[in-house]
């Protein structure tokens, strides 16, 4: 096939696409949706998996009440679930003293402000914890971290944005993790700082001193077995204190194995969720079937889109018989006509796939906003994924394949019959 032939084929394809503008546009749009959907399904799956199993959380393990490791991680790391229960303060102190533990930060939960959970912790959370390697929490200019013995609060960036809380604001917590105006606590807290955005679930949390968490009206402590209600001005004995969980930074992976053996296998009093990535990976394993269904739907959409190319080109074949007959009469070979149709089909798929990147960007941006709103986890929407390369190639090949049937029809067009006068 010489250069003249090739340019001739491209001219035929271009003219045909222009001539059947409407059907071309509709088919391109359906392919764009299909390509965008396929790329998005795979990308969201990969992104969410990576963000939830390997994203920055700042600590290696979570110690909490005996029960589900997943619930413990979801509650403490992602601030999504309810707490599985409390553990006594002496357990927090014991794990803090353990030589395998570098950092142990208490975590007490049970209240919210307009749906954003309030967590009681201590100053180490801000001063010692690296939420991402090398990054510690910082407050926006004009703010500071709370005084552990005052009714003060530090607000995560997302929570501040949605609630309007800023340094100097005062608010009253609401009991429970679900916002209900009837459960308002009497104590008033002053916001002393708003955290800089971290793109982690911590952005959705309001942090208060754990000591003040204990002293909130209606809060009773059962760390020592019996019920204890703190009184104003009276020091709370350690034996009555309790925490929902302890966030742990471990010395090394071997430390995790040893603590896992001690707490989960040897012990019956608490649960150690470790490693956090593995616990979350188990969740993805359990809901993997949802991804499989979404993937199947995406594949079906691609097949339907390929079918739409076939239908749209095939439907034009009758009206184009004369055109092919003329081309053949002017010297075009059968293979030229065949190639032109296959190329036209592939071109529609190609344009559709390129447009699909816009659909992909729109879906991913929307998904990222929803995931951020619901969990505080930031997805890296425009990170390179192999599916962004593979999908266009597969779609173009599929498009070319869809063009084979109409191409065969064009190939077999009889010149003499179709050049006969039409009336």
């Amino acid at each position, binding site marked *: 096939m010489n250069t003249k032939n090739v340019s001739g084929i491209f001219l035929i394809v271009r003219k045909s696409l222009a001539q059947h503008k409407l059907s071309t546009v509709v088919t391109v749009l359906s392919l764009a949706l299909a390509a965008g959907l396929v790329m998005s399904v795979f990308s969201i799956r990969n992104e969410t998996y990576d963000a939830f199993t390997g994203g920055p959380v700042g600590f290696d393990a979570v110690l909490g009440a005996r029960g589900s490791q997943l619930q413990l991680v979801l509650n403490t790391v992602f601030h999504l679930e309810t707490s599985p229960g409390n553990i*006594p303060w*002496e*357990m927090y102190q*014991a*794990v803090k003293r*353990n030589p395998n533990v570098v950092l142990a930060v208490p975590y007490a939960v049970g209240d919210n402000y307009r749906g954003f959970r309030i967590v009681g912790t201590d100053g180490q959370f801000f001063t010692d914890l690296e939420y991402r390697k090398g990054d510690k929490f910082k407050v926006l200019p004009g703010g500071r971290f709370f005084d552990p013995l005052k009714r003060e609060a530090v607000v995560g960036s997302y929570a501040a944005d949605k609630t309007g809380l800023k340094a100097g604001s005062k608010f009253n917590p609401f009991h429970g993790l679900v916002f209900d105006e009837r459960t308002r606590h009497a104590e008033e807290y002053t916001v002393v700082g708003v955290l800089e955005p971290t793109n982690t679930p911590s952005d959705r949390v309001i942090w208060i001193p754990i000591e003040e968490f204990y002293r909130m009206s209606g809060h009773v402590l059962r760390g020592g077995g019996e019920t204890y209600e703190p009184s104003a001005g009276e020091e709370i004995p350690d034996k009555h204190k309790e925490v929902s969980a302890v966030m742990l930074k471990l010395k090394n992976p071997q430390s995790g194995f*040893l603590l896992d*053996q*001690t*707490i989960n*296998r*040897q*012990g*019956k*009093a*608490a649960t150690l969720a470790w490693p956090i990535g593995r616990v979350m990976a188990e969740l993805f394993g359990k809901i993997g079937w949802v991804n499989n269904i979404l993937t199947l739907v995406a594949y079906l959409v691609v097949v339907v889109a390929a079918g739409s190319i076939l239908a749209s080109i095939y439907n034009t074949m009758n009206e184009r018989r004369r055109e092919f007959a003329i081309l053949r009469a002017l010297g075009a070979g059968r293979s030229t006509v065949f190639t032109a149709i296959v190329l036209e089909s592939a071109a529609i798929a190609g344009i559709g796939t390129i447009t699909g990147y816009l659909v992909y960007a729109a879906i991913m941006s929307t998904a990222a906003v929803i995931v951020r709103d619901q969990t505080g986890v930031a997805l890296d929407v425009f990170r390179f994924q192999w599916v962004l390369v593979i999908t266009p190639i597969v779609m173009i090949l599929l498009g070319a394949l869809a063009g084979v049937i109409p191409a065969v029809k064009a190939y077999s067009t009889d010149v003499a019959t179709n050049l006969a006068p039409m009336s």
Partner: protein
Amino acid sequence: MKIILFAILTLVLSVSALHADQSQDVHDEEHHHEHHAPHGGTLVVLGEEFAHLELVLDPGAGSLAGYILDGEAENAVRIGQGDIEIKVKNTLPPGGESDKSGYALILEAVANVLTGETAGDTSEFAVQSDKLKGVQKFDAVISVINIKGQTFRNIGFRFPEGNE
């Protein structure tokens, strides 16, 4: 015809040999499966793999910890014993006169808030002794251990090899 018979015979013999190999593997596995010490220590088997005592030595601190484990050396088994006596001798490096005649270490029951174990209901025992500082190897005899109604006496072993 001869070729077909030969092929069938070869096939039958191959399948039989493969099956015999697999049976042998399973057989071997049943009798020689290895246990892994969960704390990275030395396993001392008690009875016919009724239970294990895992010993973890810290020569720097001169401490010896013992963990009672089940027959698979996987799960902790709590016992009511207040202490476990282990007689030690022939230490390496040698530890002087007391080493030749041997000496007794009393591993006390450990209460641990993280596990919920208490003295008298624990799987963890420990002792600290200056005599153990720097020690790498020794001969030992566990005087007595009561586990789930069974009593094991005078269990001898070499540390860190164990007796499995």
